[in-house]
């Protein structure tokens, strides 16, 4: 029996007690999956898992208050569940977690860079154990999966769900890269270079808030200060400064809470490398508070508490 069969059986046995189970199904073309809300056994037939199942389904959980929901999670997604539990945003007894042992998910951007023609013209896809055979615009190409995995997979220390009611698949011994080359390269730039980079990048931001809405930790929803009129934090003006202001708001509100699921960057329709900011903030949180969001239960988010003596904060001797 395959992993998918194991998962389907596990879901089937819980379906009766749940409002629905959130998983994935085939999307609008062979290279895309899309979230699936399973309510019946007929829905369950459409469930898929694998490298196309990129979406962090945990983002839907806080919309189902008071109802009992099942959700399929990869390792990275399970960290979001833990963080939501730590912040009392969901109740443990209201969620049944189907955890996966994940081999990594693809980055559409990397697939595009590796193909002879744009993946928008894809005709067929064959997913193997370690490669992807893609026919696009009449040309066939075989891509090594390892070469098109999302950046977050390259540094993933938790490929297997770290919280679950049912765990499917073979456990991994993760050996992640220490850090991402692109992150290091960016951090090494001078202030002026970084400013120029964000100025240019933010000039193509359209402030659609896909990054915010895709984020599992963003629960303010309709009351987000970015779109509040009174008080007015950010102007409707689509200038680089206002767009950057929104990113500063988002990252500040995620300090100590971001689980680096990368959905913000994936959701961005104009490919802004948002994770550069978030990974950096997380490094600071790790340095000062010695913790990473979503890695352990019963962990109070660091900015919601304090210590009288802070070991790693210099008290600004002037």
């Amino acid at each position, binding site marked *: 029996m395959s992993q998918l069969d194991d998962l389907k059986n596990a879901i089937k046995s819980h379906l009766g007690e749940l409002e629905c189970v959130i998983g994935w199904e085939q999307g609008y073309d062979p290279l895309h999956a899309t979230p699936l809300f399973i309510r019946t056994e007929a829905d369950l037939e459409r469930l898929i898992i694998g490298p196309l199942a990129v979406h962090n389904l945990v983002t839907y959980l806080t919309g189902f208050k008071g109802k009992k929901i099942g959700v399929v999670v990869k390792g990275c997604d399970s960290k979001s569940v833990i963080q939501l539990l730590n912040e009392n945003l969901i109740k443990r007894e209201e969620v049944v977690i189907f955890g996966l042992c994940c081999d990594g998910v693809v980055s559409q951007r990397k697939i595009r860079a590796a193909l002879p023609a744009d993946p928008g013209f894809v005709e067929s896809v064959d997913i193997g154990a370690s490669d992807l055979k893609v026919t696009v615009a009449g040309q066939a190409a075989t891509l090594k999966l390892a070469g098109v995995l999302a950046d977050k997979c390259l540094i993933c220390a938790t490929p297997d769900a770290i919280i679950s009611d049912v765990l499917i698949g073979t456990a991994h011994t993760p050996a992640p890269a220490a850090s991402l080359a692109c992150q290091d390269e960016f951090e090494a730039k001078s202030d002026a270079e970084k400013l120029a980079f964000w100025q240019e990048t933010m000039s193509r931001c359209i402030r659609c808030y896909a990054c*915010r809405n895709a984020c599992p930790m963003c629960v303010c929803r309709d009351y987000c200060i970015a779109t509040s009129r009174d008080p007015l934090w950010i102007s409707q003006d689509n200038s680089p400064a206002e767009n950057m202001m929104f990113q500063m708001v988002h990252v500040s509100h995620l300090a100590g809470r971001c689980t680096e699921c990368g959905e913000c960057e994936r*959701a961005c329709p104009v490919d802004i490398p948002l994770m550069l900011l978030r990974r950096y903030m997380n490094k600071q949180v790790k340095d000062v508070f010695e913790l990473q969001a979503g890695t352990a239960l019963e962990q109070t988010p660091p900015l919601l508490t304090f210590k009288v003596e802070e070991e790693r904060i210099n008290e600004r001797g002037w």
Partner: protein
Amino acid sequence: MERFITKENLIRLAEELSATCRVLAPVATCGTVTFRRFQPGMTLDLHSRMAAVSPKAATFPQTESLLTVKREIPEKKPEITETLPEGKSVVIGCRPCGARGKLIFNPVYETDKTKDPYFILRRDNTVFISLACDRPETTCFCHSVGSGPADANGSDVLLTLVGEGYVARSVTPAGEDVLKSALFTDAGDKGKEADAKNAKAREMMGEAHDYVSAPEKLLARFDDMDFWQAQSAKCISCGACTYMCPTCYCFNITDDDQGLESRRIRSWDNCMSHTFTLEGSGHNPRPTKAHRLKNRVGHKFSYYPDLHGGVMACCGCGRCIKQCPAGVDIRQIVKAAQEYSE
């Protein structure tokens, strides 16, 4: 008029035009293609795929200043200056679907009763040099909404890639003026090749879906919130679809105050956001994402066609499908409504 222009000369044409106009052309940065103000020396990305954003910013920018207000000292009368758009623009290398967007604006922004001077000035002073598509993407469905990969409606010049250059056909008098440039040469036989390419692209799209019953069927689902909740379950209510869409035309007007100066700006609004119909009292007639998605789909495939002679407020470019972080597919939603049975 039919002429021919080489790839190099198209860049030269952009350079020539940028001396007197604002030229917008597709440029690849960070792996994504957006429209940028063309400057000599830039590399364009015309062919890898259609731009992620639509060219609607040429006629309807995301932010535009409507007027400015200045006060010298509090007692003096404020000085109000209307900031109407000036100058001419050219969009080079958009796809036919992108250029068509403004056709959807026209019956709304220019009526007998109301004429939006900002939109009209920009529209009348922008030339669209569109590029016909060679092949459809998996998300293209222009053929199902009365258009096609080589639809000239909305463009001033339509280019079709033939060999190392483009067959250029003028659609409007403004387009004819463009073709008068010495950079264009005689098209000769190439016109036939262009026709064959255009036909091939249309053939590759397969059968069009018939949306004729959509307006009525969608209206029949108006009170069916169960239907809309199921359809909107995976939507994250962001607004990427609206902002990417060449035909979405809703806007907000806000004042940016800084001390004794103020600027009244118009900016894109988006019906997927909670604040779209949030009233001053706090009441919101569209409180959930199910309500809002119903509005968006309904507007494009039901209310607008009912008001404007059956024309769908959709150009079939598919950006809303491929840019949606959750893969919400408007084609599927409309089809579900059309095929709905108790």
